[in-house]
């Protein structure tokens, strides 16, 4: 926990870091890499006096981040070209959206797959358009998995591009339809904001709601430090940009039935990163907040995840949230039968 705390401190208050020992630096780098935060750390520490090797490591991380940005924006552009003839709203999600809108949250942000949100009724047409442009299924279409994805999940089975070898996840809402909170997908699309390149992104308040849903509904909180850092960066930028932001966030959180998730996200961001948050929206501190914090900080200076029991408990919780128990059992049984 000590080493993850060092990482959080370095991000939150790089000026207050003070002198670190060689061991501390090695631990900080390993923990940051394990938490996918090395890029963000590199930007936070940029320009400060650092040991030569650390400066080289972080310069490499900044270079990496620039490359990740180029590749993410390129995937978005190729998806735009493929879907242009269909004339539908294509909404970028997560890291790619941050980069496309040049948000502070994009600094140092690595990006995995391209995630986009489309209207549910256009999903099949979109898949055809993507396949025509060179994306393909990871596995050949299979009866049960197909059914599972189309009926219970909130996305198409993932597609991978034939030559570029990069994945695209096409969503029609931000949580599985079987999960208990049911966000309003049509409202997400309606409130979306146009980007200069012709693609779109979620409105600021919806972006926070999505990040909060993503953080908790995915369940085991893996990658939580990174997700909360996203939320911290987004909140600071959005709150500074508009006096209306907090009331809007309250409104949208309720609209998407994610009030609790958003409140928890605010409290945890404040706890870890000292994010200024609206006290009313965040609500009172709960005893379980400390459990969440412990889970988020369960990383040591060798990059290992500690506290396995806590992690397992959160993992089960994750699957529970995604699918009602009976459905989960059926899914697992069919999978086991092969």
């Amino acid at each position, binding site marked *: 926990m000590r080493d993850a705390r060092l990482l959080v401190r370095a991000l939150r208050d790089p000026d207050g870091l003070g002198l670190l020992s060689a061991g501390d630096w090695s631990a900080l*780098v*390993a923990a940051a890499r394990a938490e996918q935060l090395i890029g963000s750390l590199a930007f936070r520490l940029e320009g400060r006096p650092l*040991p030569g*090797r650390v400066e080289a490591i972080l310069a490499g991380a900044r270079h990496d981040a620039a490359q990740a940005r*180029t590749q993410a924006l390129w995937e978005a552009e190729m998806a735009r070209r493929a879907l242009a003839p269909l004339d539908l709203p294509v909404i970028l999600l997560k890291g790619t959206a941050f980069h496309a809108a040049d948000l502070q949250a994009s600094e140092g942000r690595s990006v995995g797959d391209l995630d986009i949100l489309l209207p549910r009724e256009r999903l099949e047409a979109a898949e055809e358009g993507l396949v025509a442009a060179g994306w393909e299924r990871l596995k050949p279409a299979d009866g049960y998995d197909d059914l599972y994805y189309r009926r219970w999940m909130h996305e198409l089975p993932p597609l991978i591009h034939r030559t570029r070898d990069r994945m695209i996840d096409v969503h029609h809402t931000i949580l599985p339809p079987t999960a208990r909170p049911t966000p309003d997908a049509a409202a997400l699309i309606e409130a979306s904001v146009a980007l200069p390149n012709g693609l779109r992104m979620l409105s600021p308040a919806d972006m926070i709601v999505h990040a909060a849903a993503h953080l908790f509904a995915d369940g085991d909180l893996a990658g939580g430090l990174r997700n909360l850092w996203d939320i911290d960066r987004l909140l600071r930028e959005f709150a500074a940009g508009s006096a209306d932001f907090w009331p809007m966030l309250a409104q949208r959180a309720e609209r998407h039935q994610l009030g609790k998730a958003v409140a928890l996200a605010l409290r945890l961001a404040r706890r870890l990163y000292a994010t200024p948050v609206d006290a009313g929206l965040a609500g009172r501190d709960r005893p379980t907040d400390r459990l969440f914090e412990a889970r988020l900080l369960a990383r040591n200076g060798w990059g290992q995840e500690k506290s396995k029991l806590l992690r397992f408990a959160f993992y089960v919780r994750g699957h529970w949230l995604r699918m009602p128990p009976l459905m989960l059992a059926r899914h697992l049984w069919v999978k086991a039968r092969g």
Partner: protein
Amino acid sequence: MKHRLSLQIGPVSFRIGSAWAEPLDALARLYAGYSEPEDGIADFTVRLEPEQIWRRWIRPSVAIRGDYILPDALPLALAHGLLAAEMGMNLQMALGQKRFLLLHAASAEKDGRALIMTGESGAGKSTLAALLGERGWRLMGDEFALLDLDEGRLHPFPRAVSLKNKAIAVMEQEVPGDRFGPRLEDTPKGTIRHLRPNQEALGRMGESARPALILFPRFGAAEAIRGVGQAEIFMRLTQASTNYVTLGAAGFDALAKLVGACPAAAIDYPDTGTAIGLVEELWREAA
């Protein structure tokens, strides 16, 4: 982590942690004469861990982890822990090295200039480089060649040479036994024995060299030298690089410069003696 070892190899430093003592004891013996990083900071972290907690003691099995991890990698038996440590370091370089353009190649230096040998696995590059290192050349590395992005110079990365199957006997005849690691049988890559580079290679591991000749050696065919078109060289080198794509424009520029400046040839050879002869001949011509 319970057991730890730090190593400086060329410009790169590693921190290796292990749940068991044995792999690091073997690693320390193999890397006798190498220093720890002067500043005490690690460029990369490698971890040798049990897959599940009980596999630490029961049928101990070593999972290779660290800053960069291959998700489906199979663990190795504890008896092959030394190999796991080596593979772990390779993995960090392959996935994490950003300061240099990384070429999967063997390299050796003479008179301040570097020979780069690259090609498919099993082509014998490691053995050739190790032999050259005992015949008047300085071994720079057998697995990875590091190309500086700004100046285009090649930097040494003199890890222990990984000798497989027949190559082991070849080098056992050239080099005293105390430079070898243990003989590891039945590994996923067959029989392996590691060889520590000689004193000269270790003492000069901080010295870079200007690339002067690129060779694509192929073992098992009649002696031959063939020219290779520059566009083909460029393409083959991108295939031999794990980080060309991540380096973007800087990688493109560095590689274009290397290909433009450096003569290249493909050589076929039936035995190592012939190979050394071909290398020396082409080296003289490239001067």
